């Protein structure tokens, strides 16, 4: 059964230095508050996994939490670059960042195999690309029935999977709706999981498009209203597009970034 914990305690209990951690949410429901708590608790040497690193990993990378990134598209959507991600890859600042790079289809299937507890997934992908050459997590596999050659990618089973959802009930059952991304797969692929939620309700009522994760499949739930800002939670908030634009000049400069993080993230824990 999922424990209802406050966010600080949930991160302290679930996320350790050196862990492989996936914070997911495809534009919608990105668990920013949990990332900020990981930053405040000064976790180090994390392997961060995420389809779209987005601002959430730009911040974690810039604050030195990560030594490795597994991803498929690293930009500020509709705005431009992730400057902290680029600075880490291009100039090792604040630390070198190892990269394991996939396409959305490939990384998604790595989560699917992880959730299904098989060691690899099979798909049509990557053939003829440079990704095949630079990656140790892309292999060729032959169909035992047709002889056709396809691509295999290894399962990802993070130590911790973290998502944001709209609701939990008091027993820790979780419901999310709207764009649901790979959230179920990440929770099920991970050894431990944390769901931050907008609201704790007495009883969940299934919504159209609603996905329910039973309490016994989740490690911990933390009530964090607004915990996905500047992303959004359908039915609770709108995406703060202005923040994504404002992030461009903040993140472009190391000092401006550090100052902003100090003021808006680290200070919140004091």
């Amino acid at each position, binding site marked *: 059964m999922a424990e209802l914990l406050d966010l600080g305690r949930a991160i302290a209990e679930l996320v350790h230095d050196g862990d492989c951690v996936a914070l997911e949410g495809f*534009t919608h429901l990105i668990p920013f508050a949990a990332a900020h708590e990981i930053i405040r608790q000064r976790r180090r040497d994390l392997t961060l996994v995420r389809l779209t690193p987005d601002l959430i990993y730009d911040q974690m990378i810039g604050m030195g939490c990560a030594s490795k990134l597994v*991803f*498929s598209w690293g930009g500020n959507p509709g705005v431009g670059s992730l400057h902290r991600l680029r600075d880490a890859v291009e100039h090792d600042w604040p630390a070198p960042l190892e990269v394991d790079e996939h*396409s959305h289809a490939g990384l998604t299937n790595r989560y699917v195999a992880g959730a299904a507890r098989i060691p690899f997934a099979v798909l049509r992908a990557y053939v*003829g*690309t440079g*990704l095949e050459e630079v990656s140790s997590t892309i292999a060729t596999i032959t169909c035992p029935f047709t002889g056709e050659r396809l691509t295999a990618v290894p399962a990802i089973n993070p130590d911790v999977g973290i998502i944001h959802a709209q609701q939990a009930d008091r027993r820790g059952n979780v419901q999310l709706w709207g764009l*649901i991304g*790979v959230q179920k797969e990440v929770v099920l692929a991970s050894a431990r999981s944390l769901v931050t939620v907008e609201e704790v309700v007495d009883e969940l009522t299934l919504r159209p498009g609603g996905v329910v994760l039973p309490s016994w499949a989740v490690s911990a739930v933390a009530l964090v209203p607004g915990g996905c800002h500047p992303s959004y939670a359908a039915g609770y908030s709108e995406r703060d597009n202005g923040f994504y634009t404002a992030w461009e000049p903040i993140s472009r400069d190391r000092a401006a970034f550090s100052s902003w993080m100090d003021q808006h993230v680290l200070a919140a824990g004091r």
Partner: protein
Amino acid sequence: MSDTAPFSTDEMMTVAAARELTDGKVCFVGIGLPSTAANLARRLHAPDLVLIYESGAIGAKPRTLPLSIGDGELADTADSVVSVPEIFNYWLQGGRIDLGMLGAAQVDRHANLNTTVIGPYEQPKVRLPGAGGAPEIAGSCGEVIIVLRQSTRTFVDRLDFVTTVGFGDGPGHRERLGLRGRGPSLVVTDLGLLRPDPVTCELTLTEVHPGVGVDEVVQRTGWPLAVSPQLRTTAPPTHEELAWLRRLEAERGTRA
């Protein structure tokens, strides 16, 4: 161009892309110009264009242009919202998408794309966003339209990195790789339109936009550009096309 209003090169690109989206087609749509072109086409000649966003929205009918690929407006107006694994496995890999649109930092003469790095992979000069959905969109969609501005930085003789295969090293390569879609059918730039030669698969200039000279296009291409003997001039945006496009842009991100 006497009876047309002034228009920007971006507007010309968007309109040229929109014209390719014929009614009833199922399109895999990325954010930015592809999404604008697809929604413009829906307002004009293709009311039954089916828009699929990789965030999981199938048959989205946004009332205003979304600002991100995961806007709530996409889920709210979709026929169906599914998980990201389902989008990629059942719908894209399943061969159900007629057309995809892709951008890139670099394209080569065989319409292969780079969105990974400028410079060497291990020590990049510029780290680009990476693959996203592109390799499999280009592999599995029935056809692909590529949209990018044309210059010797973007139209290069040799890609720094092959993120996405267009026609590989030329005729027959897609088939040898087992790619199921037909590959790129059109490249839309700020200068004109390029299409793969049916025999050589090499990108060939088939249209220049109004006011653009062939010499300029050749100069802004990093390889000796093939030019079609039947080179035409793109029809300028009509009043209706421009009016709808500007209205869409003005209302972008507002809730209907």
